[in-house]
């Protein structure tokens, strides 16, 4: 333990930090949907995989860079989410949790196995982007260009979401509907339209994260794992809090990377789950959440 040269730890911490930004962006989508609609999207990771495979298709047919493909896949996944909300999820808004859960599990099964039928169970990834082997040297530490660009893209999207919810009329209306459902109805907001937009944003976040993660590797059956990861992050940060999701993402990203070098890679998620249990017991609203 701690017997490797220092730069290896620094290097891992930076890798974790960069991956954490992507995790945070992915988790924000889940957090927004719960914060606004109080619906737990148990198909979030599966939507991520869907976005990832769309990016993979565009990459293998047109050699389109997955990061640039977000401009296409983001809106597409937004539409997918909005339609899903309008047709299915909306019926379950007031239903008991276990019914919402079953609907989402059904949807997750359809997505995972649909993708498996089309693309097969093997891992796919966009590994031959022009900058695949580039790196930057900062003070003796080498940073992969791929990781850096992924994190940068994630942070740009996070910034966009912050702006959207702070500054736009729609964003403010969604926050109003989240704070007070009845009040939002009273002042004449079209809540079911706002919910469709919210679910669309959630799906778009997942899809965009999929575009970034396809630069590593994804398989159809990684979906449930990502759902679980997103949950861990969101709970640690505070369910419903956007800054919390970002913080949770970075914490999990760094703890996974550090556990990988300090102990062994197979132990990496024990810290995530340990942290999750501690946060739930001692600060159930999450590190940055409001007390429920």
């Amino acid at each position, binding site marked *: 333990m701690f017997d490797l040269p220092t730069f290896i730890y620094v290097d891992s911490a930076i890798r974790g930090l960069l991956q954490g930004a992507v995790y945070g962006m992915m988790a924000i989508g889940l957090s927004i949907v719960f914060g606004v609609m109080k619906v737990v999207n148990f198909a979030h990771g599966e939507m991520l995989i869907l976005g990832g495979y769309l990016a993979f298709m565009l990459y293998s047919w047109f050699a389109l860079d997955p990061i640039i493909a977000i401009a296409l896949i983001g809106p597409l996944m937004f539409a997918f989410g909005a339609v899903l909300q309008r047709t299915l999820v909306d019926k379950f808004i007031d239903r008991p949790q*276990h019914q919402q859960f079953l609907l989402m599990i059904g949807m997750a099964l359809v997505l995972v196995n649909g993708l498996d*039928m089309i693309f097969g169970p093997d891992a796919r990834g966009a590994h031959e982007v022009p900058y695949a082997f580039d790196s930057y040297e900062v003070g003796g530490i080498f940073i992969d260009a791929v990781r850096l660009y992924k994190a940068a893209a994630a942070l740009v999207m996070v910034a966009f979401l912050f702006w959207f919810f702070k500054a736009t009329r729609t964003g403010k209306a969604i926050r109003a509907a989240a704070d007070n459902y009845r009040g939002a109805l009273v002042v004449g907001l079209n809540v079911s339209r706002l919910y469709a937009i919210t679910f669309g944003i959630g799906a778009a976040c997942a899809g965009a994260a999929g575009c970034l993660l396809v630069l590593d590797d994804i398989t159809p059956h990684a979906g449930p794992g990502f759902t679980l990861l997103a*949950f861990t992050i969101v709970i640690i940060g505070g369910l419903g809090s956007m800054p919390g999701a970002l913080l949770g993402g970075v914490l999990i990203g760094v703890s996974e990377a550090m556990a990988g070098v300090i102990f062994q890679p*197979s132990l990496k998620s024990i810290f995530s*789950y340990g942290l999750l249990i501690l946060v*739930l017991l001692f600060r*159930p609203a999450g590190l940055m959440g409001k007390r429920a």
Partner: protein
Amino acid sequence: MNPSPRHDGGLAGLPRRALVALVVFAAALIAAPGFVDDYILSVLILGLYFALVGQAWNVMTGFCGQLSLGHALYIGLGAYTAGALFVRFEISPWIGLPVAMVVAGLAGALIGFLSFRFGIRGVYFALLTIAFAEFTRILFDHWGWVGGSSGLYLPVTERTQVDLWSLRGPLWMFYYVILAAVGLAFLVCRRLLNAKIGYYWLAIREDQEAAQAMGIDILRYKVLAVVVSAMMTAFGGVFYAFYYNQFYPETIFNIDKSIEILLGVIVGGIGTLFGPILGAFALAGIGEVLIWFQDLVGVRGLKLLTYGVVLMIIILAKPDGLWPWLRPLLGLGRRDRA
């Protein structure tokens, strides 16, 4: 959800028609091995296994209203306790079973006490149950004494000789063991639901604050619901270990295991007595038909894809499950009875 039934425990309180139906159903299950081949028998065993663990899950979530998404933990603890005692010390599963139930019960008590003591409810509690199951999975992955990530293997002997004491034997022996367990679990659930504790659970499920205001010690009764549920689930875990003879942390503590437990209950009718049994058989049957269909078409993934669609259709069409809808159709009681 359904209001509480108004009769005492035991079977005496059942309406005549329901009693007859129950006896016919039980008789058909008891006679089944004489009429069906090994394949159908294995499907029935699978259905009964899910009926057992589904009933166990139903105690905690259906009766007491605490959503658990981590019941794989109790399956795994049950399987590992009895399995390790058998493999390491050649201790009979019938001695391992109570030990396994105590281990799972203690784990449930710990999780329940920690969560409810700190006021964790709803989605947060559900996610905490997942976290504990995943945490335990990784611990077992690195615990060499029980085989680590390569899992635990039980010595396989010939399946023609019946050795009930060591639970080694042919398919029909396992069938009767799990059938007896399901029958026992049904009686226990019925007994509990009609006792004081059952009424307290339903009160907590419907309105925790009101139940507390009525003077119910909610911490105590919620923890008890988890403990009872965990102990019953461990029975399923012990059966799993000796029926399948091998298991790994990766599979037995997996969230998929937790999810497959609760699907049947929600499909059958959560909070009802017969719903978990009906749902388990319905899903086992649908599963087999879909496997047949998948082999016919020859496309992998088709089974689970269709399974997902079926689940969505059922929850859209019959959100309270099949049993509350089927029961009045069969003339076995009013719509509003459990």
